[in-house]
């Protein structure tokens, strides 16, 4: 099984709204799962993340929790956002009785993938174990909202209602003075059967199809067996970046999309992020600069980009964003700080200038 070959991940130094991260992560994961890009060539120094997760899962099932955790963490090093990996981590933490950490892990998943029922369900089980039936109820109701036929959540929810009813009677009728917490028999879910869906409305979704235009004889990277239900992915419209909000979040969203396009080697999309009056470097004409970018991007076999935002300032129709960029390709590794000056055109942000340094 081949995993993603190019990846964009985000580490935000400053506090940004969860929503932007969510959105980006969804695009990210659709890249993750739908990618048909060239295989990741292993330098041999480390195993592919896919294998780490597979091994971790085996170890977890064998009850070798410490080893499973090491494997899962190794996988998450290179793919910190991977949903299956994080889910497995949550399961391992639960088994290790590290309940607060397990809760945090599943909370993270519910925030990044609110439409997945399994993290909600498992959160509910952990909350119920702590005697917090109200929180458990909310988590299960969220699971059922998006998956009304999800049987486990319904059964667990029935249990929660029973506990809450009993609690109410105990309080009102002054019954159970022993305050014994009930043995909650809620069922943890051990597998996620669905995969994160790409956001419906927002237009540009990175695609296998587009990529296959550039590399026709590619085997489609097949996802892990459990993630079979890959959501249908629409072809990318040729150029424009997404409509995005005229604020910090919108700017960062746009830059995230630009990085994705770049790492996906989608030159047309990449170039579409640059404003008409973009300040080309080295005195190149626009045409020459574009040709140079196209050549360099296509030359790389694989591209991986990580961004860490330092600051984002929006003033009217202009914005200045500073971030740390880690670029890794098959031939080049470079880390530098970049400053992008963005300008608002209609409902989109475009790059007006790009320079190294902060």
């Amino acid at each position, binding site marked *: 099984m081949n995993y993603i070959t190019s990846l964009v991940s985000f580490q935000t130094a400053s506090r940004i709204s969860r929503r932007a991260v969510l959105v980006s992560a969804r695009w990210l994961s659709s890249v993750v799962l739908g990618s048909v890009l060239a295989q990741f060539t292993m330098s041999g120094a480390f195993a592919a993340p896919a294998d780490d997760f597979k091994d971790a899962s085996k170890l977890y099932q064998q009850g070798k929790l410490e080893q499973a955790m090491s494997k899962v963490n190794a996988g998450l090093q290179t793919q910190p956002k991977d949903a299956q990996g994080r889910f497995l981590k949550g399961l391992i933490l639960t088994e290790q009785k590290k309940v607060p950490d397990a809760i945090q892990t599943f909370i993270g998943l519910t925030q990044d993938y609110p439409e997945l029922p399994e993290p909600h369900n498992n959160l509910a089980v952990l909350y119920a174990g702590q005697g917090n039936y109200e929180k458990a109820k909310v988590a299960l109701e969220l699971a059922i909202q998006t998956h009304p036929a999800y049987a486990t959540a319904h059964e667990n929810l*029935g249990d929660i209602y029973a506990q*809450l009813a009993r609690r*109410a009677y105990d309080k*009102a009728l002054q019954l159970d003075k022993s305050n014994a917490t009930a043995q909650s028999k809620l069922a943890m879910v051990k597998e996620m059967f669905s995969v994160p869906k790409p956001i419906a409305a927002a237009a540009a979704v990175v695609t296998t199809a587009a990529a296959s235009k550039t590399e026709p004889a590619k085997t489609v990277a097949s996802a892990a067996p459990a993630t079979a239900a890959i959501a249908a992915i629409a072809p990318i419209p040729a150029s424009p970046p997404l409509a995005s909000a005229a604020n910090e979040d919108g700017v960062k969203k746009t830059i995230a999309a630009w990085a994705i396009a770049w790492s996906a080697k989608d030159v047309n999309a990449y170039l579409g992020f640059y404003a008409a009056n973009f300040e080309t470097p080295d005195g190149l004409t626009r045409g020459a600069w574009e040709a140079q970018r196209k050549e360099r991007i296509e030359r790389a076999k694989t591209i991986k980009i990580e961004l860490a935002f330092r600051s984002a300032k929006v003033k009217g129709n202009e914005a200045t964003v500073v971030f740390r960029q880690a670029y890794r390709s098959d031939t080049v590794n470079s880390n530098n700080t970049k400053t992008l000056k963005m300008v608002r055109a209609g409902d989109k942000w475009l790059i007006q200038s790009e320079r190294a340094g902060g």
Partner: protein
Amino acid sequence: MANAAVIAVALSLANAAAAAAQSAPLEATGLAGSVAFSNEVEGALVRALETLKDGGIKPALKELDAALAKNPNFRLGHLMRGDLLMAKSGAALALTGTPPSNDKTPKPETIASIANLRHEAQVRLHRYYDAPAADALPTAVLQMAPGQEHALLIDSLRSRIYVFRNDNGRPLRVADFYTTIGKLGTEKAREGDQKTPLGVYRVTSKVAKEKLTDFYGPGAFPINFPNDMDKRLGRTGSGIWIHGTPPDTYSRPPLASDGCVVLTNEDFQQLGKYVDPGTTPVVIAPSVEWQSPADWSAVRGVFNGYLMEWKRDWESLNMDAYLAHYSRAFAADGKNIADWASNKRRINAGKSFVKVEIQNLSVFEYSTAINQPPLMMVTFDQDYKSSNNATRMKKLQYWQREDGRWKIVFEGAAS
């Protein structure tokens, strides 16, 4: 509304008293599996509640449904069932007493009726969740006379009637049932006050079902209210019975009758097995405090000590010692303590000996009011012999706490 106020007081007192009473939590007594429930209906209530904890709503409903099938008029069961069906919608449970969140304001009758059902739920469940220890004993019953095969003790606060068998003079708890008393509680003082009397009575007869309307269920056991103490206290009224319920009713609220003691029909049938008309004492107390056997024996021992000391002092012909056992509040047949004392001195002046035999002794706590410590009611067959007289009589005494000891406040013939 007086009724609601009485319920509220009863509930808060129940909570306080229940906390103070010697009790064992459900789990500690191994209740869930092995407890004897007074009847199937209470078993279903407790099992439904326990099942909520570890089985969920559906199994809890099954418990209730089984009981409701046999007792379709069990309103409390229906209310709890409705609550559980509503539980998933997040609506407030009626049995918790929180008003419903919808806009419709329920009628006063509905509010009152649900409050009654909640009260019934509370007392029925407290019987098991705050159960007295299996060997705990009430100081209300200190000594049973040989002729008294069983005695009944009513805990007015907790709406429960307990049945004791006579085990060589010691009470042995054999059964108990949920019971309804007067709408306005206890301390009956006059006809129509809707209160149940406090005190020690006995079942005078059995009235067969055929002689009654079906309002009374399978039958009735009248008790001798007003007794001598009631008459002395100027309390009037009549027709206080123990009886059942009409056919369309399974059980009535804890505070509902005109003063009678009412049981469900199935419970009344069970109770009837223990009742000996003409004999069985019925002790009606504001509340029952359960003691360990050791503490109970200590109370009994102390009181018995005073009784025996009184007998010895009487036989000793030492009038000062004898009269020290009598309260300054003593009153009997129009005599006060001064009259009694001068009479006794005169009678005993010429005697050379007095011998008193006490047999068939019974001692019960006699409550005259809710917030006053009870008297001790003592009856015995007295065989009196002196140098110039011999009598046999059935004697009745009431003793009260005074100056740190027990003293006689009434003495006379038992009727």
